[in-house]
């Protein structure tokens, strides 16, 4: 599993976890018929992507990019991890919440109309 797994275990392990979460989530998205389950699967996929992003920004053995001590400020370049992925993930999590909320609102209204959570009951438009 990768040439560098032993030397740089942390980031790679997390990366693999992220990819596995994506696969698990996709399986759920594609096979579950309950729309709430599908949405849960989507959040799993999103979390997976976020995990991957964080793992990409991680540098073994470094601390968070908060330069609140003098030591850190002096030798910041070799002591902190990349702040950019953190910023991106932060945004992505918030966006995820937004879409999830909207999706769930759709689910509620769809349930009101059809009394069902089965995705097959919502194929009114086709062909």
């Amino acid at each position, binding site marked *: *599993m*990768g*040439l*560098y797994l032993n030397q*740089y275990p*942390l*980031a*790679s392990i997390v*990366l*693999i976890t992220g*990819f596995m979460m*994506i*696969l698990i989530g*996709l*399986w759920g998205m*594609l*096979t579950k018929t309950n729309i709430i389950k599908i949405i849960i699967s989507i959040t799993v996929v999103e979390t997976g992507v976020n995990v991957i992003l964080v*793992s*990409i*920004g*991680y*540098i*073994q053995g470094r601390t*968070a*990019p*908060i*330069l*609140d001590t003098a030591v850190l*400020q002096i030798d*910041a*370049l070799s002591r*902190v991890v*990349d*702040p*950019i992925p*953190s*910023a*991106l993930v*932060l*945004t992505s999590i*918030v*966006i995820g*919440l*937004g*879409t999830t*909320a*909207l999706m*769930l*609102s*759709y689910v*509620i*209204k769809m349930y009101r109309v059809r009394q069902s959570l089965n995705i097959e009951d919502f194929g009114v438009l086709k062909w």
Partner: protein
Amino acid sequence: MIKRFFIALSLIILAGTFAKVVYNFVPNTELTNVAKHYVQHGTQELGATNLVTAVVVTYRGLDTLGEVVVLFISAAGVGLLLRRRKNDLVTKEEKRTEPSFLVQSVAEILVPLIFMLGAYIFLNGHLTPGGGFQGGAVIASGTMLLFLAAPYKHLNHGVLTALESISGFAYVLIGILGVTLLGAGHFIDNRFLPLGELGTLLSAGAIPIIYIIIGLKVGTELSVVLEDMREE
């Protein structure tokens, strides 16, 4: 069953692609060029010790503005879908159970504390982990607790909307202030206020203000979303 087989097959192929990525993945040992600049100069340039905050609020400020917009329109979308409209006919009113005394009293103590925690988080965004979004989310959790304690209470939509509206507008205004005070190309620049002393609460230019605004906006917005989902 055939359908599942094909899905499994395609996911396996996808896993193969992922495996290729993992196999070729060499974890970073150094910062990227852009990150280097942030790490080296970020604190001086913007006056924030939390570099993530520096990136979020200023360097990638446009993203954050966008993020606020995303939250804003999600809340609007939820409202559009769930709020009752003039001609809707509802057959049955739901029954809500009165919560236990314990819950009510715990909530009475906890809610103000949670709100304060939230405020703390976004006020110190430039110094410690956290910021407007996290603080806002915490505030929304407080609201949620409030709902648990008092199922029949309604939030004052008017106040919330006004607060949300004003904070959003203020964010844009601060963005424009950057342009008017510092010149073109300085949209959402926090440096139109003095950077202050590094590490203190009142430092990092406009970052605390921006985070307060964001915190308020996110807090109110998420509360409205929760309210909409509860009231539906």
